[in-house]
Every structure is written in structure tokens, then in C-alpha cells.
């Protein structure tokens, strides 16, 4: 069977009520989502959140306990991996160590009985700019080069969906930045749907059009990077994607477009459109760079004491202890040089109502903040 029939379905990828149960825990819990054709989609979450299991079910390496996976109108839930129009870039690449780079890339084409593989392989090698390495063996290549070969080996087959499982996890920081841009360029050139699994929120935001934040087998929130960052809907998303200052509060009244919320005895304003909860108990959230020091923005919480200051070049990051003893993180731009604020100084904190978001108040303030950001 050198010429297995690969399904040639085209279209969006649908996951419908997908569940994967292992002996003692539920890895993926009733997950439904649609990935539009040609988009760059990221599954983001801490280790053990079920993102890799989801990916492996799409690849056919893991069988769902329940639910359905389809591409366009074709159900591929139980199709063998080699029958799916899906290819994977594995964590640590999984190149074939006994084959040359050329043969590694030609592997999928040869299995499908393509007669003349030379042109396709050369084209894709050119795309990843490694044509001169065709006759080398994988262990003679650097990590970044192996990574690009792994991408080339997958996209040469022109799959409908390309799955990337923490593809940059093994690279150092500088190379990772470079590869992020590279992968995005390749995706735009070939126009294949990319599904990228990562625990690195910066990576997800840099590359993806749409991010689904996963936690404990479920999708917490899905949207564009800016949408998730500016309007998180849960404490987990607020803390996992960037940093957030969350403060407990109680809604006094809602009128017109704004609500008045009391936090620790201080009344502030929140746009109703930016409130994820209809209840009275809420968590008020503000991103650190949106808090202002010694300015007169509309939502003011009075004075606090600076307990820590770290200069990080583009900005200076402060910890400010409020009157109710909560430490808030504040980023101040260094556009006019480092501000003259020292540890122990008393400063006032304020921000614009439009930059406030409000979440359901029954959540843990630190959900998603202290989860390990390591790969699973």
C-alpha cells in the first residue's frame, strides 16, 4: 500500500464537543471550536491544560473519547493519521535521523506515490532558505535549521491543516523571535491553516490571528490577541495573558453606558460594555501600563507607597502598595528618561475608565498567575 488514499477535504476545521478522558482525568472537556480556513490559530495554555491532547486528536495520534472532528464537510474523527490532510511539526522535530534532509522532506511525497519529488522538495527548501543543506543528515544541523526542516517536511505535502506542537520550545530566545517571524511569513506565503500549540503567551500573540486560551480541558476565551489582552473575560485569561491588577469591588449602580463600582471605599467608573459579569460582586481589572502615577485620570484611588522599582529599559516597573495593602504593578514609559520615583515615595494612582474591565467576582484573584509556564 504505497499509495494510501488521503482525504482531499477542504474547508474550515471543526471540533464538535470533543472530549478525551484518560484513566484518571479528563484532558479535554467538551470542547467545540471552528478554525477558519487559512488562519493562524493558537491554542495557548499552561502545561496539562489539554492543548497538546487536542492537537494529537486532530492529527489522529490520539482517539477522542467523544465528539467529532471534521474538515469542511468530511468527518475525520476516526480516520488513521496517514489518511488525514493534516501534517504535524513535532516538538523536538522528530526528523528521521537515518535519512538526508532531502529524503526527510520527500518522505510524505514518496508515500503518496508522487513520481517527481525533486521540484517540490527544492521549492520548499528554498522557502525555508536551506537549499544548501539538502544532502546533510539531521544531526549535522543546528536546532533552528532542524526546526525549519520540520516545517518544510510538513508543508511540502500541502496539507489542509498544519499542526505545530510547541515548535519553538527547544530554541533559545533570540532564535525563537526570529523563527516566529519566519513561521508567520511562511504561513502567509502558503496560506495553509496553522494550528499552533504553545504555553508562551508572547509567542501566541506575536504569531496568531486568533488565540484560544485553554485551561483544564476547556477554552476560557477565544479572540484576537488585542481582544484577549484588552478585554479578558476571566481572571485566568487576565493573569495568564500578560499581567493584570485585579481588585475586588461591588457594583453600586448601572446607568447609561457606565457603572459605578465601589472598591475599598472608593467609587470608580467602569464602562458597562467592558463588564463580563451581571452580578454585583466583581473583580476590577487594569493592565499595569494603563495605571498612571501622579496624574489626574478619572478613576483615582488616592495615594500608595512604592515598594519596588525595576528599570527594564523601555519602561520602569513599580510595585505600589495601596491604602488597603494590595500591591499593584505599574509600568511607566521611559519616554522622557527614567521617572524620578524611588522606593518609599508616596505616589497617587489613577487611570481612565475606558481602560477598566470587570470580571465575575467569585473567581480566585490569582487564577492563571502562578501556573508554570513550562512546556508539558
Amino acid at each position, binding site marked *: *500500500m*504505497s499509495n*494510501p488514499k*488521503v482525504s482531499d477535504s477542504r474547508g474550515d476545521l471543526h471540533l464538535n464537543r470533543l472530549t478525551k478522558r484518560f484513566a484518571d482525568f479528563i484532558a479535554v472537556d467538551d470542547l467545540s471550536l471552528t478554525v477558519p480556513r487559512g488562519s493562524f490559530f493558537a491554542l495557548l495554555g499552561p502545561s496539562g491544560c489539554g492543548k497538546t491532547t487536542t492537537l494529537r486528536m486532530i*492529527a*489522529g*495520534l490520539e482517539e477522542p473519547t467523544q465528539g467529532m472532528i471534521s474538515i469542511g464537510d468530511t468527518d475525520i474523527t476516526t480516520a*488513521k*493519521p*496517514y489518511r488525514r490532510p*493534516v*501534517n*504535524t511539526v*513535532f*516538538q*523536538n522535530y*522528530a*526528523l*528521521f*535521523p*537515518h535519512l538526508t534532509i532531502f529524503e526527510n522532506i520527500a*518522505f*510524505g511525497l514518496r*508515500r*503518496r506515490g508522487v513520481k517527481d519529488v525533486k521540484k517540490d522538495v527544492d521549492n520548499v527548501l528554498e522557502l525555508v532558505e536551506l537549499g544548501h543543506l539538502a544532502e546533510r543528515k539531521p544531526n549535522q544541523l543546528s536546532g533552528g535549521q532542524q526546526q525549519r526542516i520540520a516545517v518544510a*517536511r*510538513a508543508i511540502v*505535502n500541502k496539507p489542509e491543516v498544519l499542526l505545530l506542537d510547541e515548535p519553538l520550545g527547544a530554541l533559545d530566545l533570540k532564535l525563537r523571535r526570529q523563527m516566529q517571524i519566519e513561521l508567520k511569513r511562511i504561513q502567509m506565503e502558503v496560506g495553509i491553516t496553522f494550528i499552533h500549540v504553545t504555553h508562551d503567551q508572547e509567542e501566541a500573540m506575536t504569531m496568531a490571528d486568533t488565540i484560544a486560551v485553554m485551561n483544564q480541558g476547556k477554552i476560557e476565551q477565544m479572540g484576537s490577541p488585542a481582544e484577549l489582552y484588552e478585554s479578558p473575560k476571566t481572571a485566568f485569561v487576565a493573569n495568564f495573558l500578560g499581567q493584570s491588577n485585579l481588585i475586588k469591588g461591588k457594583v453600586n449602580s448601572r446607568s447609561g453606558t457606565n457603572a459605578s463600582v465601589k472598591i475599598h471605599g472608593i467609587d470608580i467608573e467602569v464602562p458597562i460594555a467592558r463588564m463580563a459579569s451581571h452580578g454585583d460582586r466583581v473583580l476590577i481589572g487594569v493592565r499595569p501600563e494603563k495605571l498612571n502615577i501622579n496624574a489626574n485620570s478619572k478613576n483615582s484611588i488616592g495615594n500608595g507607597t512604592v515598594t519596588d522599582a525595576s528599570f527594564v529599559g523601555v519602561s520602569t516597573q513599580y510595585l505600589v502598595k495601596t491604602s488597603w495593602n494590595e500591591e499593584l504593578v505599574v509600568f511607566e514609559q521611559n519616554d522622557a528618561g527614567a521617572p524620578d520615583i524611588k522606593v518609599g515615595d508616596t505616589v497617587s494612582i489613577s487611570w481612565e475608565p475606558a481602560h477598566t474591565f470587570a470580571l465575575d467576582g467569585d473567581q480566585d484573584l490569582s487564577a492563571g498567575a502562578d501556573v508554570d509556564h513550562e512546556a508539558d
Partner: protein
Amino acid sequence: MAFLHATTHASAPAIDNAAKKRSLTPYLLLLPGMVWLIGFFVLPIATLASTSTMTRPEGAAVGTYVQSLRFQNYLDAFSANKDQFLRSFIYAGIATLLALAIAYPLAYMIAFKAGKMRSFLLVLVVAPFFTSFLLRTIAWTQILGDEGPVVSFLKALPFFSNDIRLTSTPFAVVSGLTYNFLPFMTLPLYASLERIDPRTLEAAGDLYANGLTTFRRVTVPLSMPGVVAGTLLTFIPAAGDYVNAYLLGNPNTRMIGNVIDSRFFAIVDYPTAAALSFTLMAAILILVTLYIRKSGTDELV
């Protein structure tokens, strides 16, 4: 000698002395091995080489030989024992192929499918070594004996005549060889299969290879170092073996090991025995070199 070297430099500066001592360490570590190798390999080989060209003087007592550089001994010994040479390599070859056929699925199962049973199964592979090689081979005379379970079973089948025998046959000798060297095949195969990253196998499936193609194109090539090591570890000792042919065979299944044995200890013809030993060694060396060249895995062995 090492100590002598150290003391002569006792007056040199301390740092220099320390460096000297450190540079001597590898040689000191090598010393026991070298002594062993010289005493029990190089010297006996040299003696054997010199014996192989000796002749027995006219009228001398049995076992008395003098050096006369008679290289004709080699030709004589070889032409008188061509059949046994050929038989040794054929039996060893068949046993190696059988062992490979049995050990590959076994090692594959232990490496990929055994889960928690893995260590236990590995102990079982090595377990035969806990009893004597001789004892286990003698046990085969019972297993294959005329009243044994195998013969009784075969007799019950319609395709075999009632006077079927298994002991004292080539079948018994090859079975014994296969059995005795099976662990030497299994362990290197297991070691190389176990090293394969399961993700490369998943990657093959992802790239449109079904189970069989993945096995042929990825698993087998990646396990080649184990196949080469295992076949060598089985073939080399099997070709020189004489215990299996002695205990399980008949006069027509004599292997070259049996000839050397009887030349040394029964006929007391040391030169012929020595010449045969050398010829066997050379033949195996040539075969092994060709094999490694052919399998193209010299970098991996």
C-alpha cells in the same frame, strides 16, 4: 615502572610533579587490562601461531613437536576439514537468521509494548544465564528425545512417520545454537529499538506511512546497529561452537569446533588444531569485515 618514573623526578617543582602524575593516570588505569591481555591473549596466540607450523620428528613420542615452519600444515588441515568448515558456517548462519527472526519481535515488544512489564521481561531474557550453558544444552536432549514432548506431538500428526527422531540431527544442533545465543541477539536489538524516539514513528504515520511502511522505512533502518551487533554476537561464537554439535548432533553434524577439540585432546595433534583455529579466526574476521562494509553501518557499530 610507573613508580620508578615518579621518584626520579622527585626533585622537580611540585606543580610539574602533579602534572606528571596526572599524565600517568590513564596508563595506570590501563595496566591491569594490558597485563591481562598480554598474559591471556597475546602470549597464547603467539604460542598457537608457533605451534601451527610445527612437525612431529620421526619416531618421537606422541605430543612431541618441533618447530619446522611447515606452512603446508594449513593447507593439509583445511583440505581435510573443508566439510566441517562449511557446515559450521551454514549452521551458524541458519541459527543467526532464526535467532534474528525470534528476537526481533521479542525485542520490539519489550521496547514498545511492554509498559510496566519491561524490566521483568528483560530479566526473563537474561534468566537462562543463571544456569550452566552445559546443563541447558543437555536439557535439549530431553526436550527433543524420542520419548520427549516434541517427538510425541509430531508423531500424533499425520504428516510424520512413526520412526521420526530429532536428537542427533542437524535440526537439533541448529536448535541448540539458536537457543543458546538468543539472548546475545535480543539484548542489542532491544537496546537499539529502545533508543528510537517514538515521535519519529508518529511522524512517519503523520506523513502518510501506514504501519508496515513505517516499520520498513523507519523502524528497521533505525534498528540496524542492533541487528548488526546482534548477528555478530550470535554468528561468531556459534561458528566456533562445539558443545551443541557434541551433545545434540551425530558424527555427520561435526562442526569445526569439534574437530579442533578432538585434534587437541583426543588425537594430540597440536599443529593441525592450531592451524584450524587460525584458519577459523581468519575466516570469521574476513566475513565480519565484509558484512559490516555491506551493511554500511561501520559508523554505528
